[in-house]
């Protein structure tokens, strides 16, 4: 066991004999610091916070109760367990000791085993508490990550469903064209169309569902010439329009600037607009 892994105990007592005895009893399991009064004890606790404070109550200057109160007011020190030292036959305020944040007390004359057991217990309790806090932090991080993944999944699914619609509408347009030209048996085309409409219906329902769930959809921005982007989008409509006898043409001024868009999503928005027009 290296020195660093020994928890540090600060013993605060104005009686040298008590300091000697307590440090001799505890030095095998702990690193000991001593303070011969309340002020000194506070100064040591503030500069090098210990893992536990053994604190005499009756001291000249700042007494043990006051030291404890000041420790508990300090956000950095308030979780350090304080074990009071008191004489066995003393009339003293145990209720006050616990109310101001004392964790336990040991009585004089000291019993070596009792002192050791009470200190060990508080140290172990503190170790377990900090372990628990660490685990809680890990769980909270994991939960936050899960939520993030869940959102990502929702936006991804919504996008995928939307993307599926485009090829399906394309197929529908082609079927329409084939039927008009009389190349396929009409009842077969009919069956295809029904099936396609079913799928489209389902996808539309799903999209509605995801639109309500998804909040942030990440954008994949690219720079592209505005005209090229418009031409590309329009091209996917040409077969369908032609089949219905609708003429589509692109009219836009020369010298349009480059634009920065998520090509897939922007193209989907334009498609949605164009689709509405002939109906």
């Amino acid at each position: 066991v290296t020195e660093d892994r020994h928890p540090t105990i600060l013993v605060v007592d104005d009686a040298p004999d008590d300091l000697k005895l307590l440090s001799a009893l505890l030095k095998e399991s702990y690193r000991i610091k001593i303070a011969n009064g309340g002020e000194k004890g506070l100064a040591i606790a503030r500069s090098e916070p210990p893992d536990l404070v053994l604190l005499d109550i009756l001291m000249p200057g700042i007494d043990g109760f006051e030291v404890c109160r000041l420790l508990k007011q300090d956000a950095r020190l308030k979780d350090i367990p304080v074990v009071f030292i008191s004489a066995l036959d003393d009339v003293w305020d145990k209720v006050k000791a616990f109310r101001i944040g004392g964790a336990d007390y040991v009585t004089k004359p000291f019993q070596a085993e009792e002192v050791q057991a009470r200190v060990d217990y508080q140290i172990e309790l503190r170790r377990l508490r900090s372990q628990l806090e660490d685990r809680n932090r890990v769980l909270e991080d994991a939960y936050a990550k899960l939520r993030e993944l869940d959102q990502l999944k929702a936006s991804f699914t919504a996008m995928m469903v939307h993307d599926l619609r485009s090829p399906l509408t394309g197929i529908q347009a082609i079927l329409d064209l084939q039927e008009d030209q009389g190349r396929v048996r009409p009842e077969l085309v009919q069956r295809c169309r029904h099936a396609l409409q079913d799928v489209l219906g389902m996808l539309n329902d799903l999209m509605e569902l995801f639109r309500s769930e998804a909040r942030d959809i990440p954008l994949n921005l690219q720079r592209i010439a505005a005209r090229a982007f418009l031409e590309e989008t329009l091209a996917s409509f040409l077969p369908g329009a032609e089949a219905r006898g609708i003429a589509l043409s692109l009219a836009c001024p020369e010298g349009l600037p480059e634009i920065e868009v998520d090509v897939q999503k922007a193209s989907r928005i334009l498609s949605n607009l164009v689709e509405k027009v002939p109906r």
Partner: protein
Amino acid sequence: VEASETPIALGIPGLDTEIGLKRLRGKRSLYLDLLRKFAEGQGSTAEDIRQLLSAGDRTTAERLAHTLKGIAGNVGATVIQAEAAAVEHGIREGHAVGPELERLAQSLSGFIAHLERALPPPAHHEVVDAGQAAAVVDQLRRLLGDNDPEAEEVVEEHLELLRFLMPGEVDAFIRSVRAFDFDKALALLHAKEERP
């Protein structure tokens, strides 16, 4: 650290070595150290209390009696423990404690005289070697600055060396280390080093 079941028979009236040792899980050398410390530190307590009372400082007087009661209890000095408790109680209740204090003073001086005769000298055989002086002083400076109680043990081990090193102020230095007043001990050590 030795732990032994062998009782220490000092034959001092009012000292229950069995209780004292048992409280320390049988650590004999720690027990003897504590008795030595008691003999060094508590000789004047009854007189100190009497002076504080006549100066009207009942709070400090009560605290001294309280402390004496505690450390007497720790070593198994049952008679002194009871008499100190009586003095403490009397002061707290606002009584005059003349007779109780007188009894305590007599028991204390008799008890400490017994202790001084009966206690074996501390078991160390130090060879004073000027070459190791710097190392000891370095170690002490580090331990005192770190508020590490081991400083007291190092001082007890090197009494002769320290007497050789700081002839003038060694008694004050040793006293403050034994009282665990490390700030004062460190100041004395620094003062000594700053002088050529």
